[in-house]
């Protein structure tokens, strides 16, 4: 859930901002999209590993089989399969379509034979014909238009995993919007956390400007406030529902054995981002980096709190327990972080992390007489 949420900012940056014609997205969309893909890859590990019998995971996909069985399409678990696999597929397609002209550029610049062959094959023989560009732009626009509702739907479906159940603390209508906002929030935090060092080490200050950072910080602040509203309304509805179990859950969350996590989460996700109101903070890379890391920790805590505090003390006291992550839980989690970082580093090394052709459209030295978008 944490990983999927992180992924969302990538698609959001590339799709929604393309539709809104926000020129500043160009410098960061490729990187953010790549981050999306890798985050989704990491996110995919968890449901598979948690199925109990991961080798039977394909049973969730409808296919004609000798047992004449079909999956239960009314289960949010199966919705998740469709939502996440669609999301992964469309993200790959969107990302690859964006890469084609750049791969052609790499092909033409490559000197070594193997590079020419690889980039040549991947660029599909792109030659920048006017007709091709026209269809290309149409396809990009359509893909952006399709990705936008997709992003929203994916995290909505993830929140349905919770909201469809009757567990106190999960069974609320605020979940879908609150999850989507949380996803964007953590996603932007992750983009910032990755991009600030990359920008520094590769000297990309001219391409990814302070203005980009400023805008991303503003989006983070806005979504952070929506998330804060979500927390507040959760507390309010626990009280307003007058449901004993809901009220107990909230009291237990705030003052029970997991209370430190809850207050830590409030500190990370609500208090910390308030510093982003100050323009100087938004422009100071060191502070912004720390804030984005804190927000990422906070969002992880949020998911932990939601999952654990609702489950560990449910309706019947006889089934109460205390959960703490085992060594293997940590291993899986740290393993996915490793996977994510490996993929990010490979990407930065091998592929153009900034969309070449879109930057050319912006740079005046190309003497392109288009209004700078």
């Amino acid at each position: 859930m944490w990983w999927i949420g992180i992924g969302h900012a990538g698609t959001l940056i590339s799709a929604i901002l393309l539709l809104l014609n926000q020129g500043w997205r160009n410098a960061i969309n490729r990187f953010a999209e790549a981050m999306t893909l890798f985050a989704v890859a990491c996110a995919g590990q968890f449901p598979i590993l948690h199925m109990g019998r991961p080798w039977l995971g394909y049973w969730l996909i409808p296919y004609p089989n000798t047992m004449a069985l079909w999956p239960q399409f009314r289960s949010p678990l199966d919705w998740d399969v469709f939502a996440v696999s669609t999301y992964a597929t469309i993200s790959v397609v969107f990302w690859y379509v964006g890469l084609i002209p750049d791969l052609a550029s790499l092909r033409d610049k490559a000197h070594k034979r193997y590079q020419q062959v690889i980039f040549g094959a991947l660029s599909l023989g792109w030659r920048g014909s006017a007709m091709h560009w026209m269809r290309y732009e149409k396809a990009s626009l359509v893909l952006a238009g399709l990705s936008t509702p997709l992003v929203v739907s994916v995290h909505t479906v993830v929140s349905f995993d919770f909201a469809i159940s009757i567990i106190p603390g999960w069974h609320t209508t605020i979940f879908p919007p609150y999850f989507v906002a949380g996803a964007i929030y953590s996603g932007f935090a992750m983009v910032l956390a990755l991009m600030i060092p990359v920008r520094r080490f590769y000297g990309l200050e001219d391409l990814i400007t302070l203005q980009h950072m400023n805008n991303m910080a503003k989006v983070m602040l806005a979504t952070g406030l929506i998330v804060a509203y979500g927390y507040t309304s959760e507390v309010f509805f626990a009280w307003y529902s007058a449901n004993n179990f809901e009220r107990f859950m909230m009291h237990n969350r705030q003052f029970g054995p997991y209370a430190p996590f809850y207050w830590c989460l409030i500190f990370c996700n609500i208090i910390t981002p308030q510093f982003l109101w100050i323009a100087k903070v938004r422009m100071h890379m060191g502070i912004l980096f720390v804030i984005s890391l804190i927000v990422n920790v906070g969002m992880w805590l949020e998911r932990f709190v939601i999952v654990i505090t609702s489950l560990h003390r449910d309706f019947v006291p006889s089934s109460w327990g205390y959960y703490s992550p085992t060594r293997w839980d940590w291993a899986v989690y740290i393993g996915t972080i490793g996977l994510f970082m490996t993929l990010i580093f490979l990407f930065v090394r091998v592929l153009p992390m900034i969309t070449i052709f879109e930057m050319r459209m912006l740079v005046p030295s190309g003497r392109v007489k288009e209004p700078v978008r």
Partner: protein
Amino acid sequence: MTSVELKPPIYGILAEFDNSDDLVEACKQARAAGYRKMDAYSPIPVEDLDEVLHLHDNRVALFTLLGGLFGCFGGFGLMSWCSAIAYPLNIGGRPLISVPMLIPITFETTILCAGLTAAISMIVLNGLPQPYHPVFNVPRFAAASSNKFFLCIESEDPKFHRHDTARFLESLNPDEVAEVAH
């Protein structure tokens, strides 16, 4: 001039320009001079070219719509068929085709099919993958993906003439004019 072509036929003649304005201007003049079979190549999308070259093609959008409809009805149909015909489960007499519960997956299959058809139709309509194309024979064409803009008048054009066309292109003030071998 009506001289007989002696050299082997070529694909066309390629003119190189330094910026997109010159390219658009050249395309305009080539249209005005009566050339129709030509193509422009640029490292970035140039908005005016569609108009100047009279390019119209909305098939990407059409195919996307069709793909989306296929995904929508296909996804819903598959689930309905599975839960009403192939594997009906009677749970307390609830409806077999419970529409609201089937909506999320219907939505996802719609997006999936629409997105895939958008990308695939773009690639296929563009005739890609096409590893070989005559324009790649011109060594300077490598710059078409970085900072140069090209106009190619193809030899299939009825008005095409090896020398006249070359002279015409020279008159447009290009950086360079080159013949494109097949």
